[in-house]
């Protein structure tokens, strides 16, 4: 195995996903000549930015054996706050931008602190914090409100060579960065160690609690980026912007070969799975299949993917 393969945590399932992506792409090409247009390719990318970011956050948390169901509340809260304070000039915008990133990170750190020190299952903790934040977001504003400077919307909608949105580049950069952190930092090794065997990690001197705080803080930071992106796309802060993102963020992680139990997997699989799911939605759209059927397909994919991994793990 090459270093590169080790660094990206290559698994055979990745090949399968790439194959599926290619197959679905071909279906799209045959289904409609409008499929391989610049506009459509950019559309696919726009759809996947926010999901790709929250799935990235979820990947790190799941790798460490945890789970973060607070995205719904967190995205909503950060969205409305960002839209409220971003104003219209660069100065207020910059302040709001940094402020939201700091806030997202801090909320993540608090969540991680509760998970690490209380011993309560992360599912329950993040469920509770999500509810609190969703309530807070709705208390702040019931309707989508606020605004962002025009120049930010321009950036969000801008495209390189007409087909490569900024968002995509940003997502790729984020995945590379997190992948690098997991491979080249002590924190990264700790994430895998804790996810695989928390007891053994503790015996080995891994600062388990600190690492958990950092993991959820990182998750909060990435979700803050997603919130800022969503506000940029919609031009307003929607307290309900995050609804569904909690559970939807998990699908690509699992389909990408990361085990819910922790310790196995990586960001490459999640990235590929996000593309797969976005492409699938797009192609079904071209085939005039209602989006409702996409849900059925998605559910079946989860079961098939997980069943395959279980069988593989047993053999």
């Amino acid at each position, binding site marked *: *195995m090459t*270093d590169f393969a*080790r660094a990206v945590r290559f698994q055979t399932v990745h090949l399968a996903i790439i194959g599926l992506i290619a197959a679905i792409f071909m279906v799209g090409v045959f289904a409609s000549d409008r499929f391989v247009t610049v506009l459509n390719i950019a559309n696919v990318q726009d759809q996947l930015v926010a999901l790709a970011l929250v799935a990235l956050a979820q990947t790190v948390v799941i790798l460490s054996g945890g789970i973060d169901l607070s995205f719904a509340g967190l995205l909503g809260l950060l969205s409305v706050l960002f839209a409220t304070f971003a104003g219209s000039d660069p100065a207020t915008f910059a302040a709001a931008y940094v402020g939201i990133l700091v806030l997202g990170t801090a909320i993540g750190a608090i969540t991680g602190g509760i998970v690490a020190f209380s011993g309560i299952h992360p599912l329950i903790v993040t469920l509770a914090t999500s509810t609190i934040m969703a309530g807070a977001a709705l208390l702040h504003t019931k309707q989508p409100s606020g605004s962002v400077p025009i120049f930010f919307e321009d950036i969000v909608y801008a495209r390189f060579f007409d087909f490569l949105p900024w968002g995509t580049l940003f997502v790729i950069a984020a995945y590379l960065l997190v992948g690098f952190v997991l*491979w*080249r*930092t*002590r924190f*990264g*090794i700790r994430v*895998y*160690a804790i*996810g*695989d*065997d928390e*007891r*053994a*990690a503790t*015996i*080995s*001197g*891994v600062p388990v609690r600190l690492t958990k705080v950092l993991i959820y803080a990182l998750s909060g930071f990435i979700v803050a980026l997603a919130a800022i992106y969503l506000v940029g796309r919609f031009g307003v802060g929607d307290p309900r912007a995050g609804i569904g993102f909690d559970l939807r963020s998990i699908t690509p992680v699992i389909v990408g070969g990361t085990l819910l139990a922790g*310790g*196995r997997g990586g960001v490459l699989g999640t990235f590929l799975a996000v593309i797969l799911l976005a492409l699938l939605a797009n192609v079904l759209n071209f085939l005039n299949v209602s989006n409702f059927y996409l849900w059925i397909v998605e559910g079946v994919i989860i079961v098939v993917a997980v069943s395959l991994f279980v069988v593989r793990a047993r053999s």
Partner: protein
Amino acid sequence: MADPVLAARGMTKLFGSNEVLRNIDFEVIAGRNIALCGENGAGKSTLIKLMTGIYTPSAGHVLLDGEPVIFAGPKEAIAAGIAVVHQEFSTISALTVAENVFLEKEPRDRLGLVDRRRLRRDCADLLQQLGIDLDPDTPLERLSVAEAQMVEIAKALRSRARVLILDEPTAVLSHREIDHLFRILRDLRNQGMGLVYVSHRLDEIFEVCTDICVLKDGDVTSAGPIEDYDHDRVVAAMVGRRLGELFPPKSGPATGAAPVLSLRDLKVEGSAASVDLDLRPGEIVGLSGLVGSGRTELALAIFGAARGAGTVALSGANYRKRTPGRSLAGGLAMLTEDRKANGLFPDASVAWNFAASTLGKGARALALSPRDEEERSRSVVERFSVVVDHVGQPISALSGGNQQKVLIGRLLENAPKILLLDEPTRGVDVATKAEIYRTLRRLARDGVAILVISSELIEVVGLCDRVHVMRDGAFVAELLGDAITEDGIMAVAAAATGGGMRPSHD
């Protein structure tokens, strides 16, 4: 003698009101290897944990180079040069050998990033120095248990250590692997390291140690240079009485009766060999063999909890599609080797644990009667003199020996005709062992057929009417009557493999 590097003085440890160690003195000297012996529950592991900062002593203190120290945690002990290989593995299967060996001590470059190349090189160097032949990039999940154990030792020695403590390091190793380990230990001793070797396997201790300290029920009962000791003296110090007194008289093999359990060409999954066996009412048959020889798997295959090809017949009737539920309903019961993993319902009460025997296939009614459950479990508690305040207490609050008694009580509840017992006295004190042996003999006399798997030769010798020695899924010898001796079994086992079977005297 030189001054000790590490010492414990007047060490006492209480868990609640339970005194597990009383006023212990213990010394580790550079260039020597002291054995810490004792039965399960004698306090060996507790003493190690006290000297390495995992537990804090209730009284007494630790001396490092003669100066009292307080280790606030295992990290401080490691920083002081005290390396420990715990009985519980600390390796992580998702990480590679190199990542495991240098976990939390990864070499880093100027930017603070993990230097992957140096990590690999440092690990390769260390492994080479220790004579361990492993690729630093292999994920731990691809290694055997023995190889993982080697990684564990390499990990303990990654930074300069002055004291190396090994807590039962050979429990899972084969003979050749043990020889390899001992070579490494002698090298380290010659380099001036102080070693502590925790074990109850006497021949290993005589082979590799220079001094000995024996614990019994939290007290040091004997200590001194190994030359002053022989097997008997160590055993007497560990157990407090002669082992022969533990076992009731045998009744001899039952030849006349028709077998209640017959195995023909039974082959466990993953094994090439198969076995034939007839088990008759009234006899206790021992299954002896190395860890990994297929003993447990054979029992599980008979019981229906593991796959096996071949025939199993109960009282002459072919028994197909075996499952634990059907086995129990058919009068075939099994006691598993690992109570915690699959013997106990830890959070449930003693009564519930006991009454689980009536919930399987033979469940008579839909409704349960708590009063009936309590009464029946109280009678078991009395019959086996289980120490418990109330049968409503969670079973995890009981000692290992008392838990085992409850499990044996549960096993006997449905009056089984055949018992498969895998390590029936593991983690049980001597008095309870004797009780269990008497119970088994009484059952045999009442016509129950019993198959006992045990790693403790003394148990096999003292208890069984007939012994099969097992290797690689096959029976390699059968011993009867007076031929059942530790030497006899050893001779067969050693001739067969030179494997890791050793006489154990606890």
